[in-house]
């Protein structure tokens, strides 16, 4: 058993294709760290000029019409909401000028809550213009999410009191970048590399059957070993990505594991904070379950269909399926929570973003683990049953 493990292990890591996958991941990590990360422009950045422009405009307005009576209702409304807004803006500007970051954090958290409360149902006031890009029909909804997210984040900073820096406020530190990527395409990159790493793990043996017939080991034990090695190999694809992580950390600081990560709750329609450590652990667990899922699919298909092409096609379809049916707000009238493919974007499930865009209550972390995990178990049991049958031998 141990000898077979070593033999498979060596084959896995000397396979030209697998080395190429690791090299490509390394290249992507370096490209991201050097080219993409430095030009990241968050919408909610610390922009004193923007705050000052807003402040002076409103200040002028209040000064010019503030002491008039008999004004238009819209003007009256503006006069009612602007003074407090301006106070918060003023506090932010002054705090940044004095480098009093704690005060800035508190004022900013207040500012986002206040702005969101006023803008969300208003037809005349808007979120940051960058949300309303040309061709985006959901700018207002995105803005609502963005403001709530940032507000909750800054509340978390005020409570947790981490080491403040502008990089921290703009989510540029290494851990925060990791968190942003987990909410974005990082899970998909990991899954695709897992698929490419394990796609030929069973079928490669069919090329040299006489060599492998000599091993005195049962088929299902072999499959277990292969699955284990594919899992280890897929988890190892983190290593080349870590290079990028370290580079970003050296440039912008690493951040720490107690930083708040805002989580959207669909029931209460508000954000609560989770610590960075918990968020990353949860993601790691979910991603591991998904990796097992893909390995189980590939093992099963390799036994039944015996074509690498099909392995690749089916597993990529599982990843891409969500794009085929996804539509904003569809969770309200369809049962998307029942398809495992709805849970591919792991980070977005955990942070509740999927609940927000699909308007669905049920797309939760627990449901995802149960659904994906049970699918994996079913496929594994199936694989074991099939491997007992004489018809589906590993080596022809």
């Amino acid at each position, binding site marked *: 058993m141990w000898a077979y493990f070593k033999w498979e292990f060596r084959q896995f890591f000397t396979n*030209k*294709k697998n080395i*190429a*996958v690791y090299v*490509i991941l390394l290249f992507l990590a370096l*490209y991201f760290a050097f*080219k993409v990360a430095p030009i990241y422009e968050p919408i909610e950045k610390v922009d004193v000029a923007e705050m000052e422009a807003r402040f002076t*405009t409103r200040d002028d307005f209040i000064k010019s019409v503030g002491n008039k009576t008999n004004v238009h209702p819209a003007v009256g409304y503006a006069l009612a909401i602007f003074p407090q807004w301006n106070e918060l803006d003023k506090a932010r500007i002054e705090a940044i000028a004095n480098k009093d970051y704690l005060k800035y954090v508190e004022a900013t958290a207040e500012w986002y809550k206040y702005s969101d409360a006023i803008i969300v149902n208003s037809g005349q006031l*808007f979120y940051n*213009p*960058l949300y*309303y*890009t*040309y*061709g*985006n*029909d959901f*700018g207002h909804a995105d803005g609502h999410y963005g403001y709530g997210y940032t507000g909750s984040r800054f509340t978390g900073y005020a409570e947790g009191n981490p080491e403040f820096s502008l990089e921290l406020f703009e989510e540029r530190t290494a851990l925060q970048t990791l968190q942003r990527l987990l909410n974005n395409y990082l899970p998909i990159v990991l899954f695709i590399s897992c698929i*490419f790493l394990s*796609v*030929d793990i069973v079928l490669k043996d069919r*090329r040299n059957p006489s060599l492998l017939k000599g091993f005195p080991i049962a088929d299902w034990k072999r499959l277990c070993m292969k699955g284990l090695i594919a899992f280890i190999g897929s988890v190892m694809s983190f290593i080349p990505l870590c290079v990028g992580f370290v580079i970003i950390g050296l440039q912008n600081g690493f951040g720490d594991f107690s930083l708040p990560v805002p989580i959207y709750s669909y029931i209460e329609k508000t954000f609560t904070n989770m610590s960075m450590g918990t968020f990353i652990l949860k993601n790691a667990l979910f991603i591991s379950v998904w990796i097992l899922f893909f390995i189980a699919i590939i093992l099963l298909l390799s036994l039944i269909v015996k*074509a*690498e*092409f099909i392995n690749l096609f089916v597993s990529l379809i599982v990843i891409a399926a969500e794009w085929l049916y996804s539509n904003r707000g569809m969770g309200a009238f369809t049962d998307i929570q029942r398809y495992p493919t709805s849970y591919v974007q792991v980070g977005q499930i955990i942070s509740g973003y999927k609940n927000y865009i699909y308007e669905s209550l049920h797309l939760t972390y627990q449901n995802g683990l149960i659904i994906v995990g049970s699918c994996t178990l079913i496929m594994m049991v199936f694989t074991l049953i099939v491997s007992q049958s004489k018809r589906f031998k590993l080596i022809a």
Partner: protein
Amino acid sequence: MRNILKTLFIIEKTDRKNIFACLIVALCIIGMVVFANATELGNPIKEKSSESLPVKVALNKFQIVDASEYGDGSDIYKNIVKQYYTYPKQRMALKTEQPALFIETAIVLTELRKQAFEMDDYELIAGNLPSKIENEMDSSYYKYLKEHNLDLSFGSLSFYPFLAFLFSVVGSFWFILICIYSSNIMIDDFRHISLIKGYPIAFSQYVLAKCMTSIGIVFIFIIELIVCSLPLIYFNGLGQASYPVAVFNGEVTIYPIYKYIAISIVYMICLAVFAILLSVILNVILKNVYLTIFVQIIFVVIPILFPGLIKLIPFNPFNYVNFPSVLNGDSLNLAAPVTLNSYAGLIYLCISIVLLMAIIKWFLSTGKLQKI
């Protein structure tokens, strides 16, 4: 030569992969037809209704001042205000189905945007407006419609416009598809060398025959694209084959739809030949399906990751593999803007095909490989 072609044809005909690929292509196209029909793709009433929101937001970036002709607002502010007040007219034209009025307002809008590009502080609102080249293409499209008194259709896409849309969508990842499809073209031969050795034929001729059968299947794909979209004739009618499409080709020009489709097909065939030849060479060098796919994808991705390279090496055929974006003038929106000409792209592709053939003929057929 005829015999080997016949043999290969019989092999390919029964290959599971080919049957599967043809089925998938057919299913995807039919899926797109259903999708286009269900979402009323191309229906301007649905697609133009939310266009005014970004302009409204752009307006919010300015202090509200007098926007009349001699008012003290800045030029760009006045321009945005004018744009903002043109939209209601356009919406009304759509709702009451008055094509002439719609085209007129569309031209006014493109003119206003064109003026805005020249003004100070344009960067402030650049994200909320279409890019310069998009605007220019819209402008010449609507002007052409007006000059030739063509009617704008208010329904969803009919057959010919859908074909143009389909080719522009499929075209953008066509090269990758063919790369993946042809990535194992020579691998099986390496596994059963003794079989191949029996053919009484030279290596280069064998490769030629293999490529020809693969290209035959590519032709089947292209025919499938057209045949599977025929159901749209039943749903939305045939449409006009001479309806204009705005295309960037060094400068903005107007092509009739049939010309656009013809160019797309020529491009697709060239790209397919290029991909197949490249696969042959990489197969022989690397002897691994996945490495072949990775190398091809790296070639495609490098100009996208490093846009500066496009300007540096304009004759790189991989700049042109996404030909719909070349025809859209997307290369002008890059950080380092560069004009890519679609005809030049075709010429570069043909030259590279000839080069690849020469490599196969003179390098690959010598030495060890002669034996297979």
